[in-house]
């Protein structure tokens, strides 16, 4: 490990009430976390802190306590990356209130990625938003860009999945300890990310998902990346926090335009109006940064060629947009059983997908 005394960083980040701001005050006074530890151990007063925090600091300042913390981290397989470590991402270090320590599960080397893009959006996307998010995140993944998001329901989770599908790396920044899966239904995604990507949090392991944590973690999501992509967000969405952070941190903002008649398009469309970059595919992002495309194909996944005249007919109808079973039936002269069989086979080949409400889409 890099620097002597990194255990003192970890210790400090474990003390309740010590965040980036108080840490700065402590550094102004003592220069070094190890020095803070010695002062606290000696029971000195800490005028720059409030009494409660100072008391907690003094109470926990023991060699045994630090050993306990390190052992617990080891047991859970959690890595701690301190500001003093070389792995600590440079981008993040540059922000005003960079976290002292990042707790991580998974592939820590991803932190040194130079090409990172954050993707954020609503927890209740429309089908359009889901498709746009999938398309862009998959494209980024295919081109070796690391996608950062918050593993929430909706757009967040979709972007992680899309990136993994595209064969890319993805980082999830949580608002709780890295050992806690929140929301619960993302268990499967969580495991996939631990396996192939990185789970990150500034909160010590075991921290429950308190509502106040989430806006704060958004600064890490925007801080890690070169730019953020807003897919769908309502008028008063939490996504706006992330946009504000990104502006403060000097990150680029891309917005994916949405249909003008759905409430979820309000924020991205407003962002475009006020001069943000518009992104309609991952190419827009790649070009902006001058990153080279890895593959020469047209955007999106390669189409599978229809194997028969029937499949070609159905594909042609679906080119015009998603459609229900009954509509396809009306537009063709297949019988119901025939069409059902054709659609099943096409689904199986991955040419089309079925959505709730018996809607089919490319």
């Amino acid at each position, binding site marked *: 490990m890099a620097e002597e005394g990194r255990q003192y960083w970890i210790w400090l980040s474990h003390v309740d009430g010590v965040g980036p701001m108080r840490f700065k005050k402590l550094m102004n006074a003592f220069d070094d976390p190890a020095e803070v530890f010695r002062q606290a151990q000696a029971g000195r007063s800490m005028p720059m802190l409030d009494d409660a925090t100072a008391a907690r600091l003094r109470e926990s300042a023991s060699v045994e306590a630090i050993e306990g913390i390190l052992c617990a981290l080891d047991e859970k397989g959690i890595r701690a990356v301190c500001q003093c470590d070389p792995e600590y991402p440079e981008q993040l270090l540059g922000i005003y209130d960079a976290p002292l320590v990042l707790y991580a599960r998974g592939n820590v080397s991803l932190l040194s990625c130079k090409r990172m893009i954050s993707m954020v959006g609503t927890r209740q996307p429309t089908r359009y938003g889901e498709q746009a998010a999938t398309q862009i995140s998959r494209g980024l993944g295919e081109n070796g860009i690391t996608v950062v998001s918050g593993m929430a329901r909706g757009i967040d989770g979709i972007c992680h999945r899309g990136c993994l599908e595209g064969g890319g790396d993805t980082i999830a920044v949580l608002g709780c300890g890295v050992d806690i899966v929140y929301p619960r239904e993302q268990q499967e995604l969580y495991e996939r990310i631990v396996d192939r990507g990185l789970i990150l949090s500034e909160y010590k392991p075991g921290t429950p998902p308190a509502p106040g944590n989430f806006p704060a973690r958004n600064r890490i999501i925007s801080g890690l990346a070169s730019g953020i992509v807003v897919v769908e967000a309502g008028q008063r969405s939490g996504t706006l926090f992330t946009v504000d952070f990104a502006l403060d941190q000097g990150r680029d903002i891309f917005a994916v335009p949405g249909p003008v008649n759905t409430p979820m398009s309000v924020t991205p469309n407003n962002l475009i109006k006020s001069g943000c970059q518009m992104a309609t595919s991952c190419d827009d992002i790649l070009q902006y940064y001058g990153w080279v495309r890895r593959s020469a194909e047209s955007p999106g996944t390669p189409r599978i060629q229809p194997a028969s005249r029937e499949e070609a007919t159905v594909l042609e109808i679906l080119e015009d947009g998603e459609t229900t079973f*009954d509509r396809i039936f009306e537009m063709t002269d297949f019988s119901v059983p025939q069409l059902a069989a054709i659609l099943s086979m096409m689904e199986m080949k991955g040419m089309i997908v079925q959505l709730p409400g018996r809607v089919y889409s490319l």
Partner: protein
Amino acid sequence: MIAGVISLGLSGVDGYAVRVEADISNGLPAFETVGLPDAAVKESRERVRAALRNTGLEFPTRRITVNLAPADTRKEGPIYDLPIAVCLLAATGQVPPEAVQDAAFIGELSLDGGVRPVSGMLPMVIAARQLGIERLFIPADNAPEAACIENIRAIPVSSLGELTAALRGERAAEAVAPVTWQALRESRQEQSDFSVIRGQHIAKRALEVAAAGGHNVLMIGPPGSGKTMLARSLPSILPDITFEEALEVTKIHSIAGTLPPRQGLLTTRPFRAPHHTASAVSLTGGGQRLHPGEISLAHYGVLFLDELPEFERIVLEAMRQPLEDGHVTITRANGSVDFPSRFMLVASMNPCPCGHFGSRTQQCACTHAQIQRYLGRISGPMLDRFDIHIEVDALEYAELTSERDAEPSVAIRERVNAAREVQNQRFRDAGIFSNAQMNNRHQKTYCALDEESHALMEQMFVRLNLSGRGYGRILRVARTIADLEESERIKSEHLAEAVQYRSLDRKYWR
């Protein structure tokens, strides 16, 4: 002075003989009824007294004891009014005792001497025929029910006066003319035809498959998408009911008193749609008089549960076992009866509490947790009872004005009948009737897949994220689709179609 006549009683769906005896002796005027009568039977003395007097007959003012044998079973309802009155008339010599000898009587009296209809006529007529009773006097309004049974003289009477005249030989006693099954069948009317439903092509096809194989169906769709209409039209494509089935079904409805007036045998399969506030007892049967519940009234027909998640869980769970067994045994302190309950379960539900999940036109306002909780109201084992899930979406204008002709129910029913015939042949020795009843062993024998289909099935599970639970159900439904096409083998296109009817197995629902 003593006289006795035969009458009948009901135990479950079967009738049995009851001997009604009256003894008139000297003593203080009194009227005592023994033989475990219920309140309605006890009250019959008031009706008998008034009816006799208002018909111009004499009610003996002496000590009267009426016994209903066998004395250890409970007698229920007003059906003994008529036999008690006849006993009194015979005992006092107002009608010749030999005229009532081998005759049986069933009927309720009104105070003016009229004879009113009773429920449970059909099973009692059937029992009377088995008991070898030669003449059976019944209320005139019950005549259509009795007309379906051959080889018994059922004589309809509309008043006590008419009956005494017949017994005295002053008037000819005419038996009801038997009506043939064929004639009854022709009078069949459909309430709702498939040809009037616009669009909903896949839903209609799924119902056709369900009708052909007897599969239970779950319809999922937003409010106003036409789930109820589809379900109500289902009886019009169900396979024709046979005489034996009609007899069995009518018996149950006869007991419950739910037969339409002036109708003998039911000629269409029953369609029952209890409201979601139904109690467990009303659904499975029971109550003080051990009545058949909705699941028995839907025997050989359709039980439609609209808004399935709104039903109380305990009610749904109570239905599970009869659904599997095809009959329900209701046991209470005062007895136990067995009712058949071989019905097709059709249920409908919204996809989420607000109803718009998956809708193309409306935004769903429910959170993920709300949707999960809503779907969670139906237990896994209950969901497992549904072979076919259909998603029904609200129609667009273009679909309402669709050009493609909708098939009339008759044409669909023909195919369904043919498919049922194939199943009857196949399952002759297996002890089941339809594909829906197949268990694992049957599936091995009758749903063998060739190599190509086998490979397809495997691929489908991987690619379409199907749950393991669905395997057997897809096989069964594919078997029915093959039967509809008169194909001996289950081909890959049959499997591919069957997959379309398993919406809830798909990942986006979980």
